[in-house]
């Protein structure tokens, strides 16, 4: 008989802390690092969204080509300069009004990764389109425990309206599994930790993990039958809800099946403290969440990830960096230099945190080069200038070399109205997705 001993995770729980991680090296169990490295390093795709556009004069490099100089907003990326590509002139047409009137923030949020023009509704018949990360996840997601992860700092909006007659589902969710099923994000680092490494679950003495998985499977099989029976009785709109339920059940089933392959047990828990919840300090919160991003990627738990620094139209103040007024209010700067300077501070704040994530990836060697060689980490906004709400010439950069497809990081400028989706299409192709078009793409973006 095995002796029941105190699970290490139980000990970790007691040490819950809001401190972010000093180091990632040496905290992953050896076995999992090896698994992540593999014979051939996988390509990871990530999308980071910042709301309310950017102060473009401090964003766009003056010159084009590989020798471009980092601008004040991109300054925190200096250490990773060789991996940073800048894409100027891209457009998100779906976010434009197209006779739907106000609501640029909701539209930008919804359209940022879908390229679609979301249907204007506060609820009934919500309609967007599948997002680029999900297209990739549907193809390469089966290789990892989580087909994709959706993370961010702000939860879903709690009450009231979000933007001019658009349901809050549009401004709160980046990832969309299909046209009417958004995938909400996790914003509590401890919850992400638990999902990645198990939540200290008590496996009873004598009851094996297999037995537990068997029970779960039997429960899921059972409720699937229930749902199928119910499905037959309902009208079309309700059936769609049950379809969504059935999809979720099957998805969880396949995650369970994959988890048994991956040996997530005692030896699978990284040697780091489990975060204890959402810290009050925004920077700490952000860093912890980015730690979780780094853990998820480095343990190869997923290869597709989206991250929202806040929901589109967010109005948080940033008193700690001298911008206590709300972000959204400030973005309507009316050309006030003071307000523009504050917007730039907020842009810089986000960029510093993005750099913090890249620090985690820096110098990680894996088969055939460095980890960042095998990444496509897109970062940007669906709005250019927050005052004008324009959706052309968007602030978009990419960190990583896409498995060597980007030979030399550079600043590229594209003709007016080149769809952002052309870049997405290029990214999908790199991930091995055979697609001829995505969103409003006109063709694969030509660069590099």
């Amino acid at each position, binding site marked *: 008989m095995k002796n029941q001993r105190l699970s290490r995770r139980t000990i970790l729980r007691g040490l819950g802390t809001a401190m972010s991680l000093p180091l990632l090296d040496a905290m992953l169990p050896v076995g999992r690092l090896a698994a992540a490295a593999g014979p051939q390093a996988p390509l990871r795709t990530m999308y980071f969204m910042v709301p309310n556009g950017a102060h473009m004069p401090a964003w766009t490099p003056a010159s084009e080509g590989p020798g471009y100089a980092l601008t004040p907003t991109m300054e925190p990326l200096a250490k990773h300069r060789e991996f940073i590509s800048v894409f100027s002139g891209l457009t998100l047409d779906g976010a434009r*009004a197209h006779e739907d009137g106000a609501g640029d923030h909701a539209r930008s949020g919804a359209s940022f990764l879908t390229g679609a023009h979301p249907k204007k509704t506060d609820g*009934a018949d919500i309609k967007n389109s599948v997002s680029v990360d999900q297209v990739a996840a549907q193809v390469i997601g089966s290789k990892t425990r989580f087909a994709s992860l959706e993370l961010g700092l702000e939860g879903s909006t709690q009450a009231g309206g*979000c933007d001019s007659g658009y349901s809050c589902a549009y401004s709160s969710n980046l990832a969309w599994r299909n046209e009417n099923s958004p995938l909400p994000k996790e914003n509590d680092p401890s919850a992400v930790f638990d999902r990645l490494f198990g939540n200290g679950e008590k496996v009873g003495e004598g009851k094996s993990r297999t037995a537990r998985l068997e029970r779960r499977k039997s429960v899921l099989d059972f409720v699937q039958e229930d749902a199928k029976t119910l499905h037959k009785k309902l009208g079309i709109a*309700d059936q769609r809800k049950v379809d*969504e*339920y059935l999809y979720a059940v099957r998805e969880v089933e396949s995650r369970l099946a994959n988890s048994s392959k991956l040996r997530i047990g005692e030896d699978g828990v990284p040697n780091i403290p489990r975060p204890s919840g959402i810290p009050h300090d925004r920077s700490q919160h952000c860093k912890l969440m980015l730690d979780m991003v780094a853990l998820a990627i480095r343990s190869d738990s997923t290869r597709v990830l989206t991250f929202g620094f806040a929901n589109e139209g967010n109005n948080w103040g940033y008193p700690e960096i001298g911008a206590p007024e709300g972000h959204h209010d400030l973005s309507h700067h*009316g050309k006030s230099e003071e307000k523009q300077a504050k917007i730039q501070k907020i842009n810089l704040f986000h960029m510093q945190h993005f750099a913090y994530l890249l620090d985690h990836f820096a110098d990680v060697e894996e088969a055939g080069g460095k980890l960042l060689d095998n990444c496509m980490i897109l970062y940007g906004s669906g709005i250019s200038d927050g005052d004008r709400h324009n959706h052309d010439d968007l602030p978009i950069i990419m960190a990583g070399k896409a498995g060597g497809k980007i030979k030399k990081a550079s600043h590229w400028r594209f003709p007016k109205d080149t769809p952002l989706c052309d870049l997405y299409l290029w990214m999908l192709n790199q991930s091995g997705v055979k697609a001829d078009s995505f969103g409003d793409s006109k063709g694969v973006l030509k660069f590099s």
Partner: protein
Amino acid sequence: MLLHNSPIRFFDFNARRKGARLFTATVMMLLTYSLSASTLQPALGIDWVARDKEFFEKIQPILKSACLECHSGSEADAGLALSNFKTSKSILKERQTWEKVIQRLELEDMPPKDAAPLAGADRKRLVEWLKSAINDIDCGRTPNPGSVTLRRLNRVEYRNTVRDLLGIDYALAAGFPGDDVGYGFDNIGDVLTLPPLLMEKYLTAAEDISRKAILAPEPGPVFESIRKPKQLTAGSSGKANDGYFSFYSNGKITIEEQLPWKGEFSLELGMTGSPAAGEYPRMLVSVDGKKVKEFSVQSEPDTPKNFVVPIRISKGGKRSITLEFTNDKTVEAKNGKPAEDRNIAIYDLKISGQKPADPIPESQLPESHRKIVKATPSTGVSVEQAATEVLRPLASKAFRRPATTQEVKRLATLANDAIEAGESYEGGIQVALQAILVSPSFLFKVEEPAPQVAGQFPLLTDFELATRLSYFLWSSMPDQELLGVAQKKQLRDPSILKQQIERMIKHKRSNAFVENFAGQWLTLRKLDQFIPDANLFPKWTTEIRELARRETYLFIADIVQGNKSMMRLLDADYSFMNDKLAKFYEIPGVEGDEFRMVSTKGHKRLGLLTHASILAVTSNPTRTSPVKRGKWVLDNLLGTPPPAAPPGVPELDKAELTGTLRQRMEQHRADPACASCHKLMDPIGMAMENYDAIGRWRTLDYGQPIDTSGELPGGDKIKGPADLIRNIGSKNAEKFVRCLSEKMLVYALGRGLEYYDRCAIDKIQAKLIQDDTKFSTLIYEIVVSDPFQRKGVRDAL
């Protein structure tokens, strides 16, 4: 009064006795219904042909000359493209847009002064026609009561339901992924999605909850002993071969085994047996010389078959187990028939067992366990019988209607399978409870389609109605009493319904209604996100924020539970506070931590518009925002939201705005493009300027005296908050009553309102005015309204 005239009871207590035929019939009727459902049209009593003719001939020309120059195409002013409306149906469908158009036409601020004027007669004709186009629905002909999309429990409802079902507070539900908001509320079926992430959480939650609700004894340790064929001996009767033991003549194999405890063990044998003279070899198993079982070893040639012999011992210790071959026989080859040899070959041998769980002492069982596990298997009561007895009431409570025989049977089988796979009885019930908690019948508020009867849209079943009612007033499942009333089909008896509503409002669970309805209606849930600049507003602390929110909730609870007039929300000269909050408001004489009713006479506070919670949630982190406050009042109290800021706000090329806030706003309004909307919002917000960004009273802003005077649209001149509040409470009372009724109907139904809901709203409003705008009248009238009582169809326009 409403009659329960649905001929089909979908969840029939007696279905078992009536047998499968009823079930089949029900399914067939459902199929028939779902085919015809799409052809159902709501009776609106509208002659579309005639109305379109009027529209094309008389109205479109006026629109074209007066409006479309600016309001058409993708660059339409204020994003309002009236050119998109090509039929009178499309106008009815987008009636909210047209209500705003009418509002602006009546105010005569559209078309703007610098545009071609609209002749008075044309204006009148346009307004009158538009009003009839969006309002003339024949309410006498049972308008479509609308259809609510299947609603999932949101996270608040989930937590409350688990609490009321099992007595367990599952606080982790607060960490479920956020429920998206539509129409201002987070209980809207159309936007409550169920992503895999949430399913993962439901599954984990179900496991956690079932383990807390029911204690299952931990199964004991496992014993296992495997003997390889080459370890066996049978004297001269057999010998070990490559991979098996060949037992070729009558004899015994004896195995000494230390069995560690009393109870059940099983002896598993993988064997083949070859026949002779038409008979297979027989094996006799004994323990300590006592016969346990004798059986025939019958198998396909060379394909070992598993034989399991249960062994029960009354005391742990060393046991000797014998396997005896009893009927060896050989037959010589004869007359062309081959020789036959009756033999046994043993490939595998395993003895295993698990120590029975120690039962948990009664005193250690949680209350939920004792309530749920009312039956246990015993002699005469099989596991399935006991499980059925436990699961029927549990599933019925969880599904908020009687569980069907089939459902209970499946659950009992699930429990039984788990038990056969090694779980204790209680562990088996846990698994069934997990299935209940993840089942769609638990997670969704299921309302099944029903056929129309005599041209009437079908009523909800009594159980469905009880569920709507309890999630409306309690954000939780119906309790035993309400389910009892539903079962007796008394929920449509007006006096019983009234009595139930009254009871529910008085119950402490109705606090959930205040927090969830009012918390969202008044946007107070967003208060957490309001973090004012600590240098400017040191008095605003997390504690004050929570006290201020509590004040508003207690204030509303008092009006709801005390059945006061809803107008008191606006003009009450009292509120609720404790010493800290009173000190924040600078109201003297309140001692102690307890909240109590406090008169605010002479303290510059009048109704909820003057609550710190609401004044703060409508402010910016560094200053007040008269625009936001004005918009908040228009959105949430008057139900006349101003047009949204146009896309791509025109850049102001002139110099930066300067001066006091009022001066800056006036400069902003000098631009006609801004003025048309800001003159709706700004005067309201300016009247509230005596309250700073955290709701404290002031008369100076940056050393300058505050001017709170202004002119409301329509010409009323006001000065200061009291004037504004009086104006809303008198001249705009109907708008306020209607606005609150509409918001509450959205919340009660879990869907956005459509044009056909107008009839129900009219009726509710009329009753309210008749009945001194009593709060309980509002709730009662919503509950008895057709949209709440009946199942209609989705917008058929």
